[in-house]
């Protein structure tokens, strides 16, 4: 119950606020609903795709491949591949975070992960 409240509390409050605003005709809540739906539709066009790709990546790419190219011993080439990969990541850090975690789990080094996240952030 507490977990549920912690996870969904702000979302719940936001929805209640928007509903009340619609009932009582408050401009702030209406503006918020507009902004929120806009943002949500942008996210929903990208985020599910990313998670499906991560799932497929998880099933198909072997740990050794990631370790060889992005692991501790990958040297400068690791950074190169990280930046190339970041260049193909559409959607900024929202998309880059889950991918970075997937890479880390497959054995990429933390330095390379940082390079990847940093480069993905500014693409």
């Amino acid at each position, binding site marked *: 119950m507490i977990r549920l409240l912690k996870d969904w509390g702000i979302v719940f409050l936001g929805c209640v606020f928007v509903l009340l605003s619609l009932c009582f005709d408050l401009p702030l809540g209406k503006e918020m609903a507009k902004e929120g739906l806009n943002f949500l539709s942008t996210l929903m066009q990208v985020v599910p795709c990313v998670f499906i790709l991560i799932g*497929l990546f998880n099933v198909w790419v072997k740990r050794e491949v990631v370790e060889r190219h992005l692991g501790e011993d990958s040297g400068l080439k690791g950074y190169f591949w990280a930046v190339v990969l970041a260049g193909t990541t559409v959607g*900024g850090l929202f998309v880059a975070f889950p991918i970075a975690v997937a890479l880390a789990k497959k054995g990429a080094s933390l330095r390379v992960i940082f390079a990847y996240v940093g480069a993905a952030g500014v693409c």
Partner: protein
Amino acid sequence: MRVIQIVTLVSIVVSLIASREKTLEGVKYGLNKLLEFLPIFLTLVVSVSFINALVPDEVILKYVGGKLCWSSVLIAGFFGSITLMPGFIAYPIAGVLLEKGVGYTVIASFVTTLMLVGVLTFPMERKYFGTKVAVIRNIIGLIIAGIITLVVAIVYGEL
């Protein structure tokens, strides 16, 4: 944005041809992860839209528009640091600001912190990376944003 949908579709088809079972397993894994992070994404949407609605564009322009001074660069950096936005959202905002007469240095400060530093998104980041890494990443992001802003100020002769 279309690109990623096409890439996903092609990947699923290729994966299906290679192995039905593995594809199902992978898609299931991905959707499970999505569900796991859904509350965080929705919390982010609610917080960001609340702040966006609370602070109208005109107010932002009033404080960071006009002649360059370091306080407006700092204010732009402060607003940029509130949340994370991907490039495809940040660059159009930068375009609007530029059209309205905001200087390059201020825009650089805003856009770089917008993409690299996020306070509201910190809980999400912490869930992915853990507290220590998330803090370090945000601090490094802030330093990089400062360097980029300085370079832009020099290149555009606004210093």
